[in-house]
């Protein structure tokens, strides 16, 4: 990793959230280590390991139509292998039939070039069940 600052921004936006928004499961999971943990803090829901993370995303993708993440502001710390990101989420739950807007943040801690621990805070009901 020659220049870690843009790497951290790009893995979050151009790989991870691009994969989520386009429902590309393999692209999303390729951002995580096999033993990664994703913890939704506002409901204290923990997804431990890549199989659990896959199951969570299968649920997210199947229960929602359009998903969009944008308006990012990143706090990037290459010294601590971390990037914390604030962003807007626009999402259309199938059962609701209308768009919800969230103002969320994620804290990503990397080991090498992939996510090891991800913490999610949501401004509304947990969507990552």
């Amino acid at each position: 990793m020659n220049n870690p600052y843009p790497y951290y921004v790009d893995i979050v936006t151009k790989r991870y959230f691009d994969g989520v928004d386009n429902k590309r499961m393999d692209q999303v999971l390729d951002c995580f280590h096999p033993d990664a943990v994703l913890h939704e803090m506002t409901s204290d829901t923990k997804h431990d390991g890549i199989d659990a993370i896959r199951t969570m995303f299968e649920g997210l993708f199947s229960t929602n139509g359009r998903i969009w993440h944008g308006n990012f502001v990143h706090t990037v710390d290459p010294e601590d292998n971390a990037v914390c990101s604030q962003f807007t989420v626009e999402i259309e739950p199938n059962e609701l039939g209308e768009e919800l807007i969230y103002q969320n943040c994620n804290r990503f801690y990397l080991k090498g070039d992939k996510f090891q621990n991800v913490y999610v805070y949501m401004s509304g009901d947990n969507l990552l069940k």
Partner: protein
Amino acid sequence: MQYPSTLDRDGLIELATKKYFGNVDAKNMEAILDCFHDTALFTVQTDHLTHEGKDGIRAMFETFLGSYETIVHQDFTCTVDEKNGRIAASFEAVLTDADGAVTRLYNTNFWRVRGDRFQEVYVYMSGANVLV
């Protein structure tokens, strides 16, 4: 918004954890407010609530500091973006009221620094909003 900051990595950590949270825990109102610009915005994103300007922030802290006998912020994990004047931190807040009831929150704050003070603060809480 992007702001020019005059603080280095250690200065950003000192501002967020010592000057700010150290004085919140000590209930030093003027020292808390000295961390903010007059036009600062303080937003609790998980409650869709913004306190505008130093007067709005003072009113919020008057309520908060008066609601608990002891306030402890601890176990900080800081993420520092020195070149952009931004710092984020996760931490545990332990709030004990006059009846001894304890509220524990595992929150994340984001601070955007202009010069050597906060211009914007964003709080994401793991539970109900205590900064009303």
